[in-house]
């Protein structure tokens, strides 16, 4: 019988070692991601900045990546957590491919997986400090969803993260309509990103705009645009 009280906490999240084991605050962060559904698929835009607090430190960070054959993932928040999420998804897609059964994970499935991961991490008080936008097309069906670090998730015709929610979504609510053409969609996104560049101090003037096409799901166009006139 051990009569001495144990000095080691049972759970590593309690006691003196707890703080070094979980995410307390983000360090290198990305700002808003804005995405919308258009006639032939999904359009997503994010700037290429990684801020270190108030310093705009990294200016070529790709905050959007294709996932599998059918989806695009855009992230704002802690960049290292985004990289970790990409590793999880890479393994997920690899195992999915190795079945070699003609099936592949679509955007709805990937969004659900991410929601589970984010929510479970939040419940352990060790979140992945990101707001994620997941869009894609599978079997002709367009899908656009969002999930954030506390596990809140939803699906909509247009989504944004961070400041984008306050500055871009009102514009999208007014001007988005079903069957936007590609040019109109890009114009609308550019309008949103322009407002964000004016008003969000952590926005940077170099954009990454990705397109996910309904008809040719394997093609993702990355248009890195530079808006020099607004420096």
């Amino acid at each position, binding site marked *: 019988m051990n009569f001495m009280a144990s000095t080691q906490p049972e759970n590593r999240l309690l006691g003196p070692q707890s703080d070094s084991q979980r995410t307390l605050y983000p360090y290198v962060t990305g700002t808003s991601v804005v995405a919308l559904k258009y006639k032939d698929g999904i359009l997503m835009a994010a700037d290429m900045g990684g801020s270190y607090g108030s310093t705009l430190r990294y200016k070529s960070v790709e905050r959007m990546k294709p996932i599998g054959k059918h989806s695009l993932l855009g992230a704002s928040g802690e960049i290292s957590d985004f990289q970790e999420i990409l590793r999880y998804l890479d393994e997920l897609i*690899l195992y999915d*491919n*190795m079945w*070699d059964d003609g099936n592949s994970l679509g955007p709805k499935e990937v969004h659900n997986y991410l929601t589970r991961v984010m929510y479970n991490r939040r419940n352990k008080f060790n979140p992945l400090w990101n707001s994620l936008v997941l869009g894609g097309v599978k079997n002709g069906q367009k899908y656009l969803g969002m999930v954030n670090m506390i596990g809140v998730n939803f699906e909509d015709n247009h989504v944004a993260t961070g400041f984008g929610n306050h500055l871009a979504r009102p514009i999208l609510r007014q001007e988005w309509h079903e069957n936007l053409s590609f040019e109109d969609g890009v114009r609308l996104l550019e309008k949103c990103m322009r407002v964000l560049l004016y008003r969000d101090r952590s926005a940077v003037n170099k954009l990454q705009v990705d397109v996910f096409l309904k008809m040719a799901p394997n093609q993702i166009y990355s248009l890195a645009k530079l808006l020099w006139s607004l420096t």
Partner: protein
Amino acid sequence: MSSIGTGYDLSVTTFSPDGRVFQIEYAAKAVDNSGTVIGIKCKDGIVMGVEKLIASKMMLTGSNRRIHSVHRHSGMAVAGLAADGRQIVARAKSEATNYESVYGEPIPVKELAERIASYVHLCTLYWWLRPFGCGVILGGYDRDGPQLYMVEPSGISYRYFGAAMGKGKQAAKTEIEKLKLSEMTCRDGVIEVAKIIYKVHDEAKDKAFELEMSWVCDESKQQHQKVPDDLLEEAKVAARAALEEMDAD
């Protein structure tokens, strides 16, 4: 060439007086009883083929896969006890993903073969484990180009230009030796492998079989995948035609 072990064959931890471990040899017999599995290294990649003997007419074609992807760039064809094979494939997948997460690059095929051989060998060292009753042919494409390895139940692993296991392995090896592999592309290699499998298939003893083939080559962008359906059909047609030509002689 069977020999009775009499007493020295009860455990994998017992040597016989003439220096053999009979349990391992018996494990190899399990591999010899399975359908033929072939792998060849062509100029630009690897082609693997399996003669899947169909146990029952009610099995769905395309089920009971014998060739598995182990990572994006490599795959494994299994001969012998299928359940044992599944275990080896699972272990190989785990080794491959672990290597990539530690070192940041896809596992070199040589390294993967060594790890699998080491694992298979492990199961020949303890009396409370039995050896794997299956052998694998591992084909992959890394920065040193396409490579083919074969791992036997004893844990031996060598690198090959062409390898065969299973019932028709002797006949298959003879056929492979006739091929000029260094000048062949994988497209042609697929046709040749199909021809060999059809040829070594014993119509008398085993009735129906299904041909399963995979490749990893420049044409498949160095990814391991099933041979595309149209090419597979072409190969089957060519193989059947070659057989008829032989029969007509």
